[in-house]
């Protein structure tokens, strides 16, 4: 398992500098776009466009492949399994008993796989162009209550700490004779209890210290809180927002109101 817990790579590209609220809204609209398009050709065009966005964002190819490795496995499984459950249309390529593989069935599998790829890439672009702090700031600015946003950013801050803690407790228990890769499934599962109990107790102690720290920093003292880093929308952010809405609205209108086959 690779060591990084953050997909974000700092860079100065236009995608990185865009307001995170615009990015979140764009991701929602692009996801909806990927869902409403059903023709393989247009899905492939969308996938190519999103790959271009990854290129603009200057993500390294190796990191992208590592981040998308689960999605690639899902895509392969979909392409293999879909035709067995979608026996509609002609021509029939193979028939044996209840199994009926047709060409439209195979194409349906390919469409779904490409759609999954588009969805994964869209969210990956959001994650690698936006730092975690900016994501939480954007959510709070869009209406999430400050104490929930604070809880969220504390979680993100502690994630590398706790990941390392789990690993070191695993090593400590291994040094005491626990074997994680042997034994029945049930035995292996119960071995994890010996790793998790110390982790949880450390976590609860951390929570106690955290609450003291929050209280000593006047948590909740004023309702009209000011922020050190503010988010401001620039004209180019408004432009990007309009483009994202248009990219979804135009095909959606074409498909649902004018019945264009998309």
């Amino acid at each position: 398992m690779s060591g990084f817990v953050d997909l974000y790579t700092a860079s100065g590209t236009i995608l990185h500098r865009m307001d995170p609220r615009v990015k979140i809204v764009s991701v929602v609209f692009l996801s909806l776009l990927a869902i409403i398009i059903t023709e393989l050709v247009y899905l492939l065009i969308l996938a190519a466009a999103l790959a271009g966005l990854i290129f603009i964002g200057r993500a390294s190819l190796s990191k992208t492949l590592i981040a998308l490795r689960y999605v690639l496995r899902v895509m392969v499984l979909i392409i293999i399994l879909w035709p067995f459950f979608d026996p509609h249309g002609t021509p029939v390529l193979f028939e044996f008993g209840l199994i009926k593989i047709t060409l439209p069935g195979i194409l349906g599998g390919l469409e779904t796989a490409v759609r999954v790829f588009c969805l994964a890439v869209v969210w990956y672009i959001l994650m690698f162009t936006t730092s975690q702090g900016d994501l939480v700031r954007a959510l709070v600015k869009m209406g999430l209550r400050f104490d929930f946003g604070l809880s969220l950013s504390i979680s993100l801050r502690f994630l590398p700490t706790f990941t390392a803690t789990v690993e070191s407790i695993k090593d400590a228990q291994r040094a005491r004779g626990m074997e994680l890769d042997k034994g029945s499934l049930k035995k292996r599962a119960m071995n994890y209890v010996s790793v998790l109990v110390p982790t949880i107790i450390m976590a609860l102690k951390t929570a106690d210290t955290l609450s003291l720290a929050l209280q000593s920093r006047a948590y909740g003292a004023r309702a009209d809180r000011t922020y050190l880093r503010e988010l401001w929308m620039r004209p180019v952010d408004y432009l990007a927002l309009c483009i994202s809405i248009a990219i979804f609205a135009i095909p959606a209108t074409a498909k649902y109101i004018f019945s264009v086959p998309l």
Partner: protein
Amino acid sequence: MLVVMSSASMESRTADGEARPRPAKFVSPKTVALYAVLTVLATAITMTLVIPLPNRGYFNVGDSMVFFAAFAFGWRAGMICGGIGSAAADLLLGYGFFAPITLVAKGTEGFVSGVLGGAWKNATWAKVLGIWAGGICMVTTYFVAEWIFFGLGYALFELPWNAGQVLIGGLIGLSLAQAVAVYRGTSSRAV
């Protein structure tokens, strides 16, 4: 002249006569800290603790944290921390588009198991019932969502993995809740 002293926090003016700022209506810092820690536990454990199976696949142990949060700290903690923690793990592992689905699946799992597990004075059988019911919610949510997005074939293929994951997570989560209750002194078992 009589001076009536009211508690300092109730006065709307400080001693100098200036208007005291209105305090924010937030949840208590203990809650913020606890929920933050439970959420990060769910995320960290979903991301790092995976049980490899003899054949190709693996289970992740994240469900144990959802059940633990629900049994030890109530249905709200189970729902919020389990749901958001697991969704965050999805975002960070590369299938961020699945995060909303995971939020609903694990959120309902935490809610149902917390509500059922806390009933009848925290009896163990109530917790087992909670695991079953919560597990059904989670597996059903994933099955329906995978059917819609990935097709029936994939949904059926993932079904036994998801069910197995719930069973393992439930087993671990139950032991965890019991062990940590002993530590916190809230268990009825003798230490």
